[in-house]
């Protein structure tokens, strides 16, 4: 199936117009085989998917069919009838749309092609958008949200009727999210306006290309054949190493400060280095630490989502102009921006997923025939194994991109309202159109009707809102919006990204009288939900400092310096992405197989060997449970390797169950690798004495009643509900700066959730929330898979003291990694005692 560079399938059929041949010749280049193949097959009428590594000329390949077609068509003469857009390019990032315009204009103007190219994003001025509707460009570069907006417009049909190609960039990153669901519905509508339209998907390597090939074509009764695939294998194998260090690799934590001098040396040795981290917190810290040792004053910059847009654009521009030696970045830079001459990628912290690693490494070296160079810097010992596993995976070409998944119901509701805004819809026609989008292919008619009912009046069994309906059925049986305000409301609420409400954190001082001063340094933003659990005087870690919470004034959170080393309330500062199932599997396999330990650094190997000696290492499908006393507490550690989210859920449920069984649990902490529960009573003794049965404790029925009971109280489910409520249009999105003044004007979604649960537990929005939770914040699906897998394979070791494998999670208890010299020394001491105990 895979067609590599050398394949000649269909190549002869490709016809490049003269200006193209001339341009290639002048540059001394030749069109690549995959570019010609894609062109030929697209010209033959196929929908296409191109999978290629970075640097393979993917963008040009994607646009060749449009550019040749437009060249053959020639310029539209002034005065001719209205012509809609010819090609729609959709990218997940605004910046990418802008970047592509620049990259595409170059060859287009050098060849002198009669093609107009414009972009349209949230930043495009109103006047320009208006003009684009009247005289559309040939090629429009835009984002999924803008497509939804254009489609909800009354002029949509006219605007899209001439469309020939839709080019979807970075398709792999779009399809698995709610944005992808919205986009798939948009494509289904575009096909109605322009049946001749063909899709061209551009993607990095994915686990299952067929998912994407199907996504690109309509489903249903007259299902088209899946999109054709052109698969360009990676060029030279990447040169990836794990940082070789003399320093001691920490037992726990996420910040890798031990490796800063070595990373700095690597920056000096290379032209341009991209340093990827997993969170903003890590980015800030690493950036700061690099500058403290930056004796040569190398231009090193920072790029993450909390920085203001202007600053980010400046960094991007400096990067493109090769003016920087290094950039510390989070996932904001994951996607295919063109980054000048990057010759090294450093990945700090474990990549959490093999595909993500491959993607990020692809940033280095844009010429695909030369190997990309990357160095992995694990932050702790488990991450060493994770890095090694990811590294094996990259060589093996294994992939763990998430599956496309079932279309979300809140997105469906949003889309239905949008379609009513465009023009009155016939429910049967719309249902057929929606189920032609692959994420919604299995949507039942009954669920569709419920969604329409929800959009109209909230979909409640108690039908008291008929007179306030947002959409109404006309006599011809079509649904139309009740009034123009509904359409306006739709436009303001459109989109699937719900930003958590964030407050600015400002550092203030107390004056002599003890009152809080004005002004002070702004430290960044923190999510409102975190602040809700704080009271004045609590200390927490933020922006690398231990801070004392003073209160909230208007839209700001006021803090003062805490002069304490031990934050009372830990803020989660670890990897935001949970470990993927695939990589977890690899790490378990590595633990179980001493032969594979040879690839690990000595200190990590020795650690595992001592564990083998003191306790045991579980086999690949076994769950190891250790219990031991420490201080006045009794600990139970479960080595599940299912990622932090699933562990958190399991922790909530286990503590409930242990409480009922009389173990008196006090708390738990979850990492990507394991779960620790501590209690006042001797859990180990209770297990050995048969008072608690492990089989019962980890039985799958824990996902039944216990889960239901916990969900009643879980604020996590309430947060999920809030997102669904916003996306589905139940409540209005908050717009920064436009917040209504005054108290209690908005309504708490927590209270709405309570009312709904108590009176209509089967409501469509609660259904949507449960579906989200199963894969999202609670990862219930994954937990269920694990419980099934370990059934009958649980081994318990009752130990006298903490085991080596338990040390990392024990160090997480009661604190988060506190950076900085003095604090590290304190932590070091605390850690040392624990480690000595484990090895004694």
């Amino acid at each position, binding site marked *: 199936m895979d067609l590599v560079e050398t394949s000649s399938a269909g190549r002869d059929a490709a016809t490049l117009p003269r200006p193209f041949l001339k341009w290639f010749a002048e540059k001394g280049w030749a069109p690549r085989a995959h570019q010609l193949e894609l062109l030929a097959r697209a010209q033959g009428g196929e929908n296409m998917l191109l999978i290629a590594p970075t640097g393979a000329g993917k963008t040009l390949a994607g646009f060749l069919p449009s550019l040749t077609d437009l060249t053959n068509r020639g310029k539209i003469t002034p005065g001719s009838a209205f012509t809609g857009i010819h090609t729609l390019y959709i990218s997940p990032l605004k910046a990418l749309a802008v970047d592509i315009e620049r990259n595409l204009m170059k060859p287009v103007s050098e060849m002198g092609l009669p093609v107009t190219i414009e972009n349209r994003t949230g930043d495009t001025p109103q006047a320009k958008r208006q003009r684009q509707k009247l005289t559309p460009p040939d090629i429009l570069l835009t984002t999924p949200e803008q497509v939804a907006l254009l489609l909800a417009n009354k002029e949509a049909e006219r605007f899209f009727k001439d469309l020939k190609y839709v080019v979807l960039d970075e398709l792999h990153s779009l399809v698995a999210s709610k944005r992808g669901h919205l986009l798939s519905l948009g494509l289904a509508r575009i096909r109605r306006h322009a049946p001749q339209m063909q899709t061209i998907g551009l993607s990095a390597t994915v686990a299952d290309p067929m998912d994407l090939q199907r996504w690109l074509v309509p489903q249903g009764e007259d299902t088209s054949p899946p999109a054709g695939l052109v698969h360009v294998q990676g060029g030279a194998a990447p040169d990836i190493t794990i940082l070789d260090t003399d320093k001691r690799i920490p037992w726990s934590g996420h910040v890798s400060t031990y490796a800063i001098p070595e990373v700095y040396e690597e920056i000096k040795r290379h032209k341009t280095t991209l340093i990827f981290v997993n969170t903003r917190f890590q980015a800030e810290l690493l950036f700061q630490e690099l500058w403290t040792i930056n004796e040569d004053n190398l231009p090193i910059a920072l790029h993450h989502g909390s920085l203001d847009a202007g600053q980010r654009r400046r960094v991007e521009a400096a990067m493109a102009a090769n003016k920087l030696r290094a950039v510390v970045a989070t996932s904001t830079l994951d996607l295919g921006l063109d980054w000048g001459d990057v010759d090294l990628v450093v990945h700090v912290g474990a990549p959490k997923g093999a595909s993500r690693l491959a993607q990020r490494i692809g940033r280095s070296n844009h010429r695909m025939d030369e190997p990309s160079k990357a160095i992995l810097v694990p932050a702790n010992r488990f991450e060493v194994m994770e890095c090694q596993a990811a590294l094996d995976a990259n060589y093996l070409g294994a992939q763990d991109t998430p599956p496309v998944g079932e279309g979300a119901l809140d997105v469906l509701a949003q889309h239905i309202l949008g379609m009513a805004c465009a023009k009155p819809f016939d429910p049967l026609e719309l249902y057929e159109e929606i189920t032609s989008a692959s994420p919604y292919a299995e949507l039942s008619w009954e669920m569709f009707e419920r969604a329409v009912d*929800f959009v109209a*009046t*909230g*979909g*409640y069994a*108690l039908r*008291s*809102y008929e007179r*306030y309906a*947002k959409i109404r059925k006309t006599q011809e049986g079509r649904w139309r919006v009740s009034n123009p*305000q*509904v359409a306006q*409301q739709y436009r303001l609420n459109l989109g699937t990204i719900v930003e958590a409400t964030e407050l600015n954190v400002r550092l203030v001082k107390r004056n002599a009288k003890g009152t809080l001063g004005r002004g002070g340094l702004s430290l960044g933003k923190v999510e409102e939900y975190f602040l*809700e*659990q704080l*009271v*004045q*005087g609590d200390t927490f870690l933020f922006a690398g400092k231990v801070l004392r919470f003073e*209160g909230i004034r208007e839209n700001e959170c006021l803090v003062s310096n805490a002069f304490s080393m031990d934050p*009372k309330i*830990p803020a*989660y500062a670890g990897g935001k992405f949970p470990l993927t199932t695939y990589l977890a599997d690899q790490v378990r396999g590595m633990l179980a197989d001493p032969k594979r330990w040879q690839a690990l650094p000595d200190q990590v190997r020795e650690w595992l060997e001592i564990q083998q000696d003191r306790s045991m290492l579980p086999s690949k499908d076994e769950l190891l449970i250790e219990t031991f006393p420490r201080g006045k507490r009794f600990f139970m550690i479960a080595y599940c390797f299912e990622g932090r989210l699933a562990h*958190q859920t399991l*922790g*909530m449920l286990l*503590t409930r169950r242990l409480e009922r069984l009389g173990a008196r649990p006090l*708390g*738990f*902490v*979850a990492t990507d690798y394991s779960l620790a529960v501590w209690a006042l009573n001797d859990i180990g003794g209770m297990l050995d004495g048969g008072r608690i049965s492990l089989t019962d404790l980890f039985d799958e029925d824990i996902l039944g009643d216990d889960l239901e009971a916990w969900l*009643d*109280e*879980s*604020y996590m489910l*309430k947060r999920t509900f809030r997102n669904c409520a916003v996306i589905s249009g*139940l*409540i*209005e999105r908050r717009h920064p700066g436009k917040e209504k003044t005054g*108290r*209690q004007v908005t*309504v*708490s979604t*927590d*209270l*709405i959730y*309570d*009312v*709904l*649960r*108590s*009176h*209509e537990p089967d*409501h469509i929005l609660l259904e949507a929330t449960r579906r989200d939770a199963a894969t999202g914040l609670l990862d219930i699906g994954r937990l269920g898979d694990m419980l099934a897998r370990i059934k009958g394979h649980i081994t318990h070791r009752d130990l006298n003291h903490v085991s080596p494998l338990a040390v990392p999670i024990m160090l997480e*208890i*009661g604190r988060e990694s506190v950076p900085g010299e003095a604090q590290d020394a304190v932590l070091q001491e605390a850690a040392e005692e624990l480690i000595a105990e484990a090895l004694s």
Partner: protein
Amino acid sequence: MPFAPWKDRRLMHRLGLAARTAALTGREAGSEEAVVHGVAAVCDPLGALYLPDAGALVVSDLHLEKGAAFARRGMMLPPYDTIATLNILAAVIARYDPRTVISLGDNFHDRKGSAHLPDDLRALVGAMGRGRDWIWINGNHDPDGTTDLPGTSVDELLYGGLVFRHEPSLTFGKGEVAGHLHPSATVRRREKYVRRPCFATDGLRLLMPAFGVLAGGLDLNHKAMHGLFDRQALVAHLLGRDRIYSVRYANLLG
């Protein structure tokens, strides 16, 4: 992250509590006594205040038809808030069988609420009001009074040695019972936080918790509360799962 289940199932608890305890009175029902400007008062865990000498039951900020008020503006919030609030109100009326019911303003969430109240719910209020006086104090959400409901609407009421108004007065606080601010308080013990609506009184004035199920809360520390109480004497009577917990303001955080 260590677990901190600081959010509660307020509505579920209140509905359950209302059903379970309608037949109980006084301490059995989990209530707590307080004195406001020399007048004895009983704080009930369902969120109402009973004045035994006057035989009056006080509730505040019912915000009836809040869901419908949002629906009128295109946000289809669940239409069940009114019935949930009225069920709790019926339970607390059954408990005290008061001569007079005083609803302290923001009885409806908007001006249209009382005119558009569905008939079955209107009948429910009618049944509750039978054989007793009902005083609707006007609030900022519903300044025009009620339509077609038992009782009378007034802006302010002097009764049984106390003054009842919706918004607390900054100048005449003595003997005042008011609502409007939806007071709630946060208690911390060890590492756990619990935030609940509360009655707040310093012995001179009393602020009522919001009774409506879709009404949020405002912390006693909020600047809107400044200057209303003598904080030395201030006590928060928090609405617990099945009883009132009385905590001095100074001891809230342990």
